[in-house]
């Protein structure tokens, strides 16, 4: 019996990516089953699959104390590779196959406007919340504001302007909340915000900016919108990293 488990562990850990394919396939099948049986297709199977993924990530994180969810469980380490930045970006780029260049041109300017609007609005929200919670120094307020932009902009800004590590951790947490909420919330609000065409998807990507959130949220809404949203979202973190430690910090510094 012991030898069986040992051999099983060996096969699982040596073939991580393949195990991940099987595991994700199983979750997806179960999610579409739930979607059809329990909600009669009202909630998309992919939305349920993404939510189950997040729940599993929480359980994995609690069980192991690691920072990459399910991937910290040895037998499921391959999920970390399958869902890592390289595979994610590769799959996102592939969705551009079949994109209409006319739609991209049509939304070009609006896309750029949405990126700047998205960074500034999220930053202001984060900064105001930081002030509400009693922060009065420009460095902490800027870092938490930058965290509400994305969980990458937060630590990049915080490190650049010399924030304390607990404030940087808070900014990462704020960015993670944003990313997760975009994944879960997008299919729910899509109808009400007109998210049903390439142009609004580009605006959406620019406003939200979190690549993971946009990737997950649009996948659960309508996969055909993914390339348009991803196209603008991919510039957002760069713009955020540019503005956070510079102009946004200077403005906050002038006020406080």
């Amino acid at each position, binding site marked *: 019996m012991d030898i069986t488990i040992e051999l099983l562990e060996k096969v699982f850990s040596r073939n991580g990516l393949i195990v991940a394919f099987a595991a994700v396939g199983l979750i997806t099948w179960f999610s579409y089953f739930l979607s059809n049986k329990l909600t009669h297709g009202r909630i998309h199977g992919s939305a349920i699959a993404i*939510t189950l993924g997040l729940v599993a990530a929480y359980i994995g*994180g609690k069980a192991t104390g690691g920072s990459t969810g399910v991937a910290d469980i040895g037998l499921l380490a391959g999920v970390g590779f399958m869902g890592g930045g390289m595979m994610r970006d590769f799959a996102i780029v592939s969705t551009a*196959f079949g994109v209409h260049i006319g739609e991209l041109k049509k939304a070009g300017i609006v896309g750029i406007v949405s990126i700047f609007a998205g960074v500034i609005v999220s930053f202001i929200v984060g900064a105001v919340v930081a002030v509400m919670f009693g922060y009065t120094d420009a460095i902490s307020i800027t870092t938490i504001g930058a965290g509400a932009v994305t969980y990458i902009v937060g630590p990049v800004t915080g490190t650049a302007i010399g924030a304390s590590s607990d404030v940087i951790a808070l900014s990462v947490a704020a960015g993670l909340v944003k990313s997760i909420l975009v994944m879960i919330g997008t299919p729910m609000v899509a109808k009400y915000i007109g998210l049903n065409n390439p142009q609004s998807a580009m605006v959406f990507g620019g406003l939200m900016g979190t690549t993971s959130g946009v990737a997950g949220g649009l996948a659960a809404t309508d996969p055909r919108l993914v390339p348009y949203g991803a196209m603008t979202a991919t510039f957002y973190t760069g713009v955020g990293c540019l503005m956070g430690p510079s102009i946004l910090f200077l403005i906050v510094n002038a006020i406080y």
Partner: protein
Amino acid sequence: MIIYGVALLSVCMVIGLFTGEILGVLIGVQANVGGVGIAMLLLVLACSHPMFKSLTEGASGAGIKFWSAMYIPIVVAMAARQNVVAAVDGGMLALLAGTIAVLVSFALVPVISKIGPQSDPLPPIDESAKGED
């Protein structure tokens, strides 16, 4: 050959990410600026150019379509490796900052979408064909 399509996709991604890194250094930020977006643009341009026709049609195109169809499973795996515990442990401040930022951004989508030329809603999805296109 399927590998031709996959190779084209890979070359677009590498060139895009490299350009994004260069842009990041040029404007002095520690991030890849638009690398994935540039890679997507390259792929769109390649697909519409006659020179690359043999790399994007038939079996070669199937190599790209496969990865496009793997998108949602990869996103599910991505969700399963998020640091959800850290998000929850961030407490009320992180929760409020993240949530309000998302709500305000959601509300701005229809406002900013009104600027400029409009595009038509996509036709309804045919459930049976999903995952194949």
